């Protein structure tokens, strides 16, 4: 232990689009710096070892567990956290769909899921259920059993696709993508491991996609 002889570092980074500077110890994680130095407590610590994904943030466009990144490593980089997902008063479609479909119970894992799901849809606008399940496999949720989370991401993807291009799907078509939970139709075949696994090809050109989606305003409002 070298306490108290510690030298603070000054770190400058862009946080949710704003230039920020903060002090940290050399061993401080990005997660602790965000939460303690910048007061951005929306990013959560569930484990501190990269196993739960509650601390997921974007670092220069890469999805990371902020508990596994030193704050000093973020020098000069662009950090995006849950606090930057909504644009002004308008929720991102992923956020709106989480609310509409009841995809959170306690809500503690929710920020990590939303950051991760947004990152997925920016890279891969039309993922299959299996692709969503594997992309989000690094995020633990203990309340929901993931069912409604997966449905919310499917619906958010559909909404984003409709925004970006000329509408290809009518409202009814979109609703058909996620079956009504009270519907007794056969949904057992939805989730099979034989579905196309995540292919690297799906993620090519991710930077361009991320920029386009990330800079566009999302007019989606929650319906009361």
């Amino acid at each position, binding site marked *: 232990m070298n306490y108290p002889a*510690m030298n603070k570092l000054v770190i400058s980074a862009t946080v949710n689009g704003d230039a920020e500077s903060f002090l940290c110890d050399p061993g401080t994680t990005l997660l602790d710096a965000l939460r303690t130095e910048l007061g951005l407590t929306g990013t959560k610590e569930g484990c501190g*070892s990269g196993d739960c994904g509650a601390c997921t943030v974007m670092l220069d466009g890469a999805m990371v567990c902020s508990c596994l990144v030193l704050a000093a490593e973020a020098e000069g980089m662009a950090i995006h956290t849950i606090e930057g997902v909504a644009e002004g008063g308008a929720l991102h479609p992923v*956020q709106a769909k989480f609310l509409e479909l009841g995809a959170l119970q306690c809500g503690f894992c929710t920020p990590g899921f939303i950051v991760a799901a947004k990152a997925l849809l920016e890279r891969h606008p039309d993922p299959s259920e299996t692709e969503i399940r594997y992309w989000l496999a690094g995020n633990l949720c203990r*309340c929901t059993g993931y069912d409604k989370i997966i449905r919310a991401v499917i619906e958010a993807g559909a909404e984003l696709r409709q925004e970006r291009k000329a509408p290809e799907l009518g409202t009814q078509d979109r609703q058909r993508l996620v079956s009504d*939970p009270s519907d007794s139709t056969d949904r057992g075949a*939805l989730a099979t491991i034989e579905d196309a696994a995540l292919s690297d090809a799906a993620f090519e050109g991710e930077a361009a996609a991320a920029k386009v989606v990330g800079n566009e305003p999302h007019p989606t409002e929650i319906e009361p």
Partner: protein
Amino acid sequence: MNAPQPQHAFRVVGTRPVRPDGVDKVTGKAIYGPDFVAPGMLYGAILRSPHAHARIRSIGTSKASALPGVKAVATGRDFPTIESLVMTVGESASDIVHVARNCLALDKVLYEGHAVAAVAATSQAAADAAIQAITVDYDVLPHVLGLEEAMREGAPLLHDDVFTKGVSPKPDKPSNASMKVVIERGDIDAALAGAAAVASGRYTMEPVHQGYIEPHGCVASWNADGQAQIWCSSQGAFAVRSQVASMLGIAQADLRVTPLEIGGGFGGKTAVYLEPVAMLLSRKAGRPVRLVMSRGDVFRATGPAPGAVIDVRLGADADGKLVGADIEFKYHGGAYPGLNAHSGVICSIGHYNVPNARLIGWEVLGNRPASKAYRAPGAPQVNFAVESAMDEIALQLGIDPIELRLRNAVRPGDPQPTGVPFGAIGYVECLEAAKAHRHWSAPLGPNQGRGLAGGFWGNYGGPSTAQVSITEDGSVTVTTGSPDIGGSRASMAMMAAETLQVPYEQVRVTIADTAAIGFSMVTGGSRVTFATGKAVIAAASQVVDTLKARAARIWGVEPGEVAWTDGEAVCSSGAKAGERMTLRQVAARAAHAGGPISAEAALNAAGWLPGFAVHICDVEADAETGHVRVLRYTAVQDVGRAIHPDYVEGQIQGGAVQGIGWALNETYVYNADGRLDNPGFLDYRMPVASDLPMIEAVMVEVPNPDHPYGVKGVGEVPIVPPLAAVANAVARAAGVRLRDLPLSPDRVYAALNAR
């Protein structure tokens, strides 16, 4: 008022509106246990035992106290000497002396991770460094982990003042067996001797953890005048208040506990661990102190659900009618008694009519963290054994598993294990819905199997307080003391809106601190929507009466001449007959026409009904790796009436998946030194999204006649059937029955290759 209304009469109940706290939770604004900051706050750290069992000879704190930034050091000696007092919080009961010892050990440490000393300092780094400077001289003692080992003569004894409760006469020697519960009826041995089919076996499992993603966290501030505040993430701010005040010898009114948002609990956050320690540090330092656990602390030192050894003999006649159940189980109590073997006995065969039964439950202590409630505490373990045995009887007799259960299922009026007749329960309706579901008859592929299991949990009601107020503009506030762990603000707003006949969005809900609202029992026992809901409906009904009286006064008519229709006062007779006054109009004039409109209901909610569930699970077992994959899962449950169906389905889906994890992956692994080998999410493997299919939740509505909107508790029973549903599916896929959880690849591989 208590008779449930027919479904068509509802305008809000049964819809799926957005929860009122939703935006805060999808934007990162919601403040959870580890997020709260108080002015001048210090950071705490706790030194924990590296030993499973040891006597503490001495604790040296002077070096730590002298470090820069350190403002306080506390040990178990800082607690006042208190008398033994068993306090019931939620679904278990603990002696407050044991709770204090668990928060900070006094003479002995009883498990690896047991808290020994605590420090508060000006930074987390300083606090973490300071606990390393504390020296503890331990006299290491032999430890015991196993259930039957702990019951043996000569086993290391955890406490010399714990005697087996439930044994008469009271034993004269202390024991690690802290509780025995026995229910007997009929002649079990004769019944089994004459049975056409008997399924018997021994079933085992190690403890599993609740696995909430938010570690425990709190801030405490204890002022020089004796008044204190705690901000914490708990399932019950009132339970924190009563336990902390009792432990520290202060008046409950001097301690104000503010519930922060809670990141999951599942029963595990009905206990206190950090709050009393933060209080001691705060009193010494004169500043607020925050304590937050690491994930390793959570696994090592907070209550897992008990592991179990369960012996079962279940007998049926040739028609599949159960004739006898002989069940004896031993559950881990861990370091301290929790007195919770009872629910396991009640839930073992509570869903079937069995004329002859001998049901014996033991709680056994060992050098592990003290077991705590986990979703239907005590039920899933014994249900795993009983529903596996039911599957064996179905196979022996060649009877369809659902048909076998229908022949034995309890119906309204049948006796509960306690002898009291069941009320309007829906187990048969669940079985019929499972039978009719297309999942039950869908084709299966090679190496695939389908399992089914039923389950029962008693649920609870109990004390709750709620306040409903009309603002000056006619919007509505609802205040309760029940922490919202899974969307209950929405169901409270919906029930108030239904009663007041106003739109859901006109009602907003606050979870108040312990000084701002009267007592409510913990958020647990599947009780909040039922019991706190009853309080909200009662308060809203009083508000309706007041609104009618105020309108009558404004109109100059008798209160009996005003009706409340579509959220408006309607004059029904006299010169003003047919005139209407909106809620907004009444509210605007209320303050000067009789005073503000507000009502509080404080009640002890009776009339709760148990929950029943039937789960169907398809698996595929890989003979090359032993890996079991869940292909399809359908969970059928009697939900009484779903106030907000999304959150009812969410409870069912979440409980089912916790049960799947329990069945396939999750287990505590201790090494020979009594240290936990897997205190993290990497090695304690909870289900992730890619492990699972969609979980189909089928809500069967058999309304509760003792709740205005028909509510039954829904949160706990969904974790009861999955263990056996998965195991029965594996048994039918692989042709081998595994009786030891989890059904990990190594065990399944060995079983498949021993065929």
